């Protein structure tokens, strides 16, 4: 039982933080939003830092690191509300490395690590809501090769991606495929509420490579990697939101005094601090359970995402309120943190959804280790 970061982990954090502070200021971000919400150059810089290959083994050109390192990195990206979807690289690295045949690994893992290949999870369907077992996309085998057909929504940077991890029903059972951009793949991109980019991606008899027949297990694992990343990203965004709010409260004057002197607002801030620390605790928990057996992992990740959902909404809304008018303007950076926190709540299952997951997965025993 030890929650200290190693020196290596602290160095990783410093490196990412430095890049965010120096290389990813609010104006650069604003320009990226205007330009459509995704910047391949920025993504390339993340790759140069080694981040896209964080979960890619060293012999495939990556850093071969684990969930705690992933958490550290995502916290820092969250702190900078970085638009480029690094979580997708973590998912792709973990899933391909964990489930794919060697040929797929050899072809794609180095590209993911180098940033040359942007591989994203394309799983959301219109009828599924947040369920993972609802899937209408299909895969057919013809002459030894697979073809995938179906439509996937809200695919992160989906019109910029080089390949997709696509769950589809093969012979009635959910399998997971890798589909490279090409014939039979069309993507319709748009901006998302946080200023980032996503796309509706249509697959029409698109050539596909089988990642695993055990698609549901792989998809659940992929989403859990995504949840842990989202939790950490949320913690980073929360930390910065808290900092902005405290600074504002100590600057802004009303009735001749700073608003930080009003007890009712101070107590609100205390409640926010509570949510902040609960969120951080549960983000640790999520990452530390990411390599646990599936049933235990799913239970833990649901608990974490539920807590994060509560915290992100509470802190986001309270921060806007404490800022007053300035908090609802586009010009002020704080409103962008609020939108990021809102989107993270809706990502990989919202709060009510995960309450349901926690509720249905409850056991007789209680606590962190249960």
């Amino acid at each position, binding site marked *: 039982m030890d929650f200290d970061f190693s020196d290596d982990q602290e160095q990783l954090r410093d490196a990412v933080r430095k890049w965010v502070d120096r290389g990813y200021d609010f104006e650069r971000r604003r320009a990226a939003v205007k330009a459509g919400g995704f910047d391949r150059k920025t993504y390339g810089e993340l790759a140069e830092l080694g981040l896209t290959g964080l979960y890619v083994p060293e012999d495939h050109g990556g850093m071969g690191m684990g969930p705690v390192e992933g958490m550290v990195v995502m916290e820092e990206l969250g702190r900078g509300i970085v638009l480029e979807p690094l979580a997708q690289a973590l998912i792709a690295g973990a899933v391909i490395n964990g489930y794919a045949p060697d040929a797929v690994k050899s072809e794609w893992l180095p590209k993911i690590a180098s940033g040359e290949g942007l591989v994203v999870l394309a799983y959301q369907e219109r009828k599924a809501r947040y369920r993972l077992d609802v899937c209408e996309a299909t895969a057919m085998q013809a002459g030894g090769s697979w073809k995938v057909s179906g439509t996937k929504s809200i695919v992160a940077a989906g019109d910029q991606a080089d390949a997709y991890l696509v769950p589809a029903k093969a012979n009635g059972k959910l399998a997971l495929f890798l589909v490279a951009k090409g014939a039979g793949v069309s993507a*319709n991109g748009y901006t998302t509420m946080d200023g980032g980019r996503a796309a509706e991606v249509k697959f029409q008899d698109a050539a596909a490579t089988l990642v695993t027949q055990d698609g549901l297990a792989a998809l659940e694992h992929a989403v859990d990697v995504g949840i842990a990343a989202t939790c950490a990203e949320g913690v980073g965004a929360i930390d910065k939101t808290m900092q902005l709010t405290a600074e504002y409260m100590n600057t802004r004057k009303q009735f001749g005094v700073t608003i930080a002197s009003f007890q009712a607002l101070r107590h609100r801030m205390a409640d926010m601090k509570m949510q902040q620390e609960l969120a951080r605790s549960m983000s640790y928990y999520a990452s530390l359970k990411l390599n646990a057996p599936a049933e235990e992992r799913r239970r833990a990740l649901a608990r974490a995402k539920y807590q994060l959902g509560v915290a992100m909404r509470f802190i986001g809304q309270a921060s806007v309120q404490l800022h007053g008018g300035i908090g609802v303007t586009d010009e002020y950076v704080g409103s962008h943190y609020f939108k990021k926190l809102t989107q993270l709540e809706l990502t990989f299952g919202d709060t009510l959804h995960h309450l349901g997951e926690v509720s249905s997965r409850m056991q007789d025993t209680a606590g962190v280790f249960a």
Partner: protein
Amino acid sequence: MDLAFTPEEQKFRQDIRAWVRENLPKEISDKVHNSLHLTREDMQRWAKILGKKGWLGYGWPKEFGGPGWNAVQKHLFEEELALAGAPRIVPFGPVMVAPVIMAFGNAEQQKRFLPGIASGEVWWSQGYSEPGSGSDLASLKTRAERKGDKYIVNGQKTWTTLGQYGDWMFNLVRTSTEGKPQTGISFLLLDMKSKGVTVRPIIMLDGGHEVNEVFFDNVEVPAENLIGEENKGWTYAKHLLSHERTNIADVNRAKRELERLKRIAKAENVYDDQRFRDEIAKLEVDIVALEMLVLRVLSAEKSGKNALDIAGLLKIKGSEIQQRYTELMMLAGGPYSVPFIKEAMAAGWQGDFPGGALGLAPLAATYFNMRKTTIYGGSNEVQRNIIAQTVLG
């Protein structure tokens, strides 16, 4: 005690309903029912339709050309408009400045300004808030110096809602720095086309242009545009604030939006999900309770017995409900609330919305936009201060 409206009141409601059905353009109500972007033309078109009927100033007494309705009638009128999907009446002219002109303006001012307000021809803006004033309105700094028969106005207003369309603006300006901050304030009407007036948009977190900064650089305002006496403006402003009672709760719109929330929840297959449905059920009780609170206030106003001074409660509960239904709509959309396609938030977009769920397009933006409701009009924290005062002294 009786919950039902009187037969006369019900007849009144039916008449309003019939007229609205006839006169509210469907292309406008469709936008309202779907939270789509309303243009200036939409708003002004509807204002003029009401103006022609004599109902834009629906709270006005008969002597000024209004219908002379009592509190219940006004409520029923507001409810019928809201349920039918009429745009909210832009209040700055008919609801805010007009009562001040009626109460404190001179005959000349009344004759000059009221007709344009009543008809919907002249668009008014409000000049109260300033950068830094916030909940402490009396700290305002915009100066108006009397020079002969003119005032020279310098300073800045902010959060000027729809000020980009404004013809005229009513302002609180500082004409004296002596005494308490409240005592040196005057109430001035200002032609926004005057030299030295600059309107700069403030883009909100939802991407919309709804409010503005307005700068005054040596703007000349004829002294005849002063309402009442110099340095008495704070009194007039408070009169204005004490108007607008029950509508602050916006319960009628909440009822319409609750019905819409149920439609969205059905379409998204969460209406029969007990976990989500319970959240709607809680909101339904909130709205019924708020409506009962509003009706109690109306009844007290009607009878004159047992005045119920709970405007702060109406503001808090009303704004929390507004935020909650927009939040639940967004949550009902689930992952499909994440796409944020500006063009899809205006009527008539022909693009492909993700999953074909076009109705969800404006939900997140509406949720973001509604965060303002607990901040403006006296933040909910200020309202709690006031309520506590009534309970604890």
